[in-house]
């Protein structure tokens, strides 16, 4: 199938417009009510925990403070302090709409069936988070480096998921971090130097190494220069095939 240059351009423009549109649908009115409404829409709630309690029709001051799992800064003001939605059988991706709860300090989504990746821009979504518990879900992909910029983090629980890759070295900058667990994941590589975090916080990750676990092993015998030469040759072939 060949395209004229004009048709091709038109396709590009349409795709960009759709992308822009979907972005705007995520970042709507920055109120906490919109935040919770969006979270409810984005998650599957098979046991109806949110469905029964999160009623947006009775719109009085502070009404969201009476919702299951919602703790407000003040009981009469719709400003979410903590969101605790543990063990509700919730399904879906990480609810990005939580960015609209701009005064949130605590998020507990543990023991659910959430999947997909942890957003890479999590430090923009949860700017002031002090306690983050995503444990016992089905999250995959890597631990985003962005979490290292959530500088108010005191407690970060990521255990019992399917996270891969390394723990970002930048986590050593989290000066308030006191609780950190990643047990039962698929993490590999060198553990960053974190104060007061013991070895059992890293258990059941076959590839993790470095203090406080045993040191990392040397790689297999193939020399570095041989591997780089191989990569260069295949690169040459592909780039000049046409």
């Amino acid at each position, binding site marked *: 199938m*060949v*395209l*004229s*240059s004009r048709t*091709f351009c038109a396709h590009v423009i349409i795709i960009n417009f759709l992308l822009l549109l979907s972005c705007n649908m995520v970042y709507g009115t920055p109120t906490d009510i919109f935040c919770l409404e969006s979270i409810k829409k984005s998650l599957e709630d098979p046991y109806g925990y949110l469905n029964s309690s999160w009623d947006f029709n009775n719109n009085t001051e502070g009404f969201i403070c009476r919702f299951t799992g919602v703790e407000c*800064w*003040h009981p009469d003001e719709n400003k979410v*302090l903590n969101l605790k939605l543990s063990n509700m059988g919730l399904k879906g991706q990480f609810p990005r709409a939580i960015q609209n709860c701009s*005064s949130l*300090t605590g998020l507990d989504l543990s023991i659910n069936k959430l999947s997909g990746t942890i957003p890479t821009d999590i430090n923009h979504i949860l700017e*002031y988070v*002090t*306690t983050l518990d995503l444990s016992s879900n089905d999250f995959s992909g890597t631990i985003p480096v962005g979490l290292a910029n959530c*500088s*108010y983090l*005191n407690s970060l629980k990521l255990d019992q998921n399917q996270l891969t890759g390394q723990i970002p*070295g*930048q986590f*050593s*900058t989290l*000066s*308030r971090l*006191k609780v950190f667990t990643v047990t039962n994941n698929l993490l590999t*590589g*060198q*553990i*960053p*130097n*974190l*104060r007061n975090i013991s070895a059992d916080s890293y258990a059941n990750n076959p590839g993790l*190494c*470095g*203090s406080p676990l045993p*040191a*990392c*092993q*040397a*790689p297999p015998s193939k020399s*570095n220069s041989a*591997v*780089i030469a*191989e*990569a*260069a040759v*295949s*690169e040459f072939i*592909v*780039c000049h095939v*046409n």
Partner: protein
Amino acid sequence: MMGLFSSLMSSFLLLAILGFGLVLIVSGNAEVDALYAWKMNLSDPNSVLQSWDATLVNPCTWFNVTCNSDNSVTHIDLGNANLSGQLVPQLGQLSNLQNLEAYGNNLNGTIPDEFGNLTNLVSLELFFNRLSGPIPGTLGKLQKLRELRLNNNNLSGNIPMSLTNVGSLQVLDFSNNHLTGDIPNNGSFSVLTPLSFHNNPGLKPPKYQTSPLPPAPSSSAASSSVLSVSSGSLLLGLCSCLFSLHYLLVLLPYQD
């Protein structure tokens, strides 16, 4: 002679009984007195404090006052009551007080140092008033305090470091005041973010550790060789990506 003596004795006895009774009435209930002293310092246009009667044996039947089973005050609920006036030191005598809610009024003056004696206090809600002066350092003695909301007042001075020793703190809001100095980030303040302190132009945020901790010494040689292998495949991937892009944007459109 005997008659005079006996009448003198009975008068003396009567006086003693009256005097004793008088002493009883005058001493009354310390908590009644404390709360009544506060009422005397308040202007109450909505007559919210109408039931606050000083002649009663305890304040437990007063509206907006709750007591425990020992008839001692545990809750004061005077939020949004249109009260003006000041807090009084005598309120510090309410040793069983757990909740003091006086938010959304027109209270001025300072927060008494004596509030540091309210050792059973769980929540102190004085937000949206016109309170001025410093946050008393004595509040650091309140080891059961969970909620401290002093936002939207005219409070000034530094945040007392003693508050970092209040391990029970869960919600703290000092926003919208005129506080100055450093924001502590140790002890109980470790879980507090700028959200608790916003709109205090003179407050300085805590400094963060800018340089990361040095990496563990053991296996730096192994990690560098792992890095060079992956950079080779990275170059490969990048080149094929750029090539495909080149094909799509430049070569394809000309194949009409």
